[in-house]
């Protein structure tokens, strides 16, 4: 079987360990999202008694640390750069400039 001609780079690993950890955090946050939402709904209202809300505080603190969405960092998808990432394209500024100059970003052109 001949190898199929592929024009792009084939990436079979994550760029670095930080990216891998970020991926794990994202997965965990997805799993616990419902629970966190519901416990926060109990915590953040003025109707229920405060004792119940304190219990809810302790419960949410007992959940694993990586399950909260605050720990997710929007890294560059190609280089794992934590800063300078444009949200729409999910790539860092350097990669964005590289692709835009090679006309590989759809609808992106230099300032006219």
């Amino acid at each position, binding site marked *: 079987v001949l190898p199929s001609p592929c024009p792009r780079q084939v990436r079979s690993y994550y760029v670095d360990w930080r990216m891998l950890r970020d991926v794990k955090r994202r997965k965990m946050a997805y799993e616990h999202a419902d629970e966190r939402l519901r416990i926060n709904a109990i915590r953040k209202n003025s*109707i229920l008694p405060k004792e119940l809300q304190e219990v809810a505080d302790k419960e949410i603190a007992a959940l694993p640390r990586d399950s909260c969405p605050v720990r997710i960092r929007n890294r560059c998808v190609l280089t794992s750069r934590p800063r300078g990432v444009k949200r729409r394209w999910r790539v860092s500024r350097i990669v964005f400039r590289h692709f835009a100059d090679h006309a590989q970003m759809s609808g992106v052109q230099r300032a006219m």
Partner: protein
Amino acid sequence: MLSKDKDKSAASKDSAREGAAKRQEDGAETPKQQLLDIIGTMKVEVSYKKKLQQLKASESKKQAMKKLEGLDSEGSVPQGITEDTQRGKPLNPELVKAASAVASSLPCNKKQTESELLAQLRRHEETTDKQKNGGTINIRVRSLKVGKRLNIFTKASTEPEHALKTVSSPTIWDLEFAKEVAAVTAQPPRNGFEEMIQWTKEGILWEFPIDNEVGMEDDAEFHEHIFLEKHLEGFPREGPIRHFMELVICGLSKNPYLSVKQKVEHIEWFQKYFEEKKELLQEI
């Protein structure tokens, strides 16, 4: 057969015997002639008769008796013939006995009648043998289950069952083979259209015109989304919890992104949570 009969009748010695013999032979010839005629026509019916044979093997003696009566009466000849043919090969000694009994019952010419009957039987047996060796040509197949099985055919019915079994439960190896074949025969896309087709199949590219509700199959009516009070039956009627849950329901009814199932699960989670905290709540 007719000539034989005539010869035998001619060979009789006593005149009185002759006369008596002639009378009896005439009387006996008609059934024999009729026998012969019917044997000639009976070749087709032999296979069916064989099945009846096997079925009525126990009744063969009764049939022998009937035969005797039939030949005596000379009127019930066809019955005698049918019973005669039914017996066929495996019942030879009985037939011989029957023939001898018949001959003895007929006055005089015992030997002649005996020999004639045996000759007829032999002829019939020959025909039946020919029929058997030639194969069972069931021209008149009235019902397949009449009589015992002849054990001539092997069971060929197991093959379609096996075929059905293999089709209904494709093994892992079959699936793997199919995947291999698909992978080998799949050519790389020759142009952009084929590439887009491939991507659509994989799920990378959406289907056009874009359907906003792909993957979301909510078959519930609007009233199931909005009127969620019936799920609040497990909660106390008054108190802060009820107040809280009514707010939750109000929020859910305005939520277009969740399915009815998800909303119901939401409410059930709260119910479970508050039941666990019941002791704490009662202290308050």
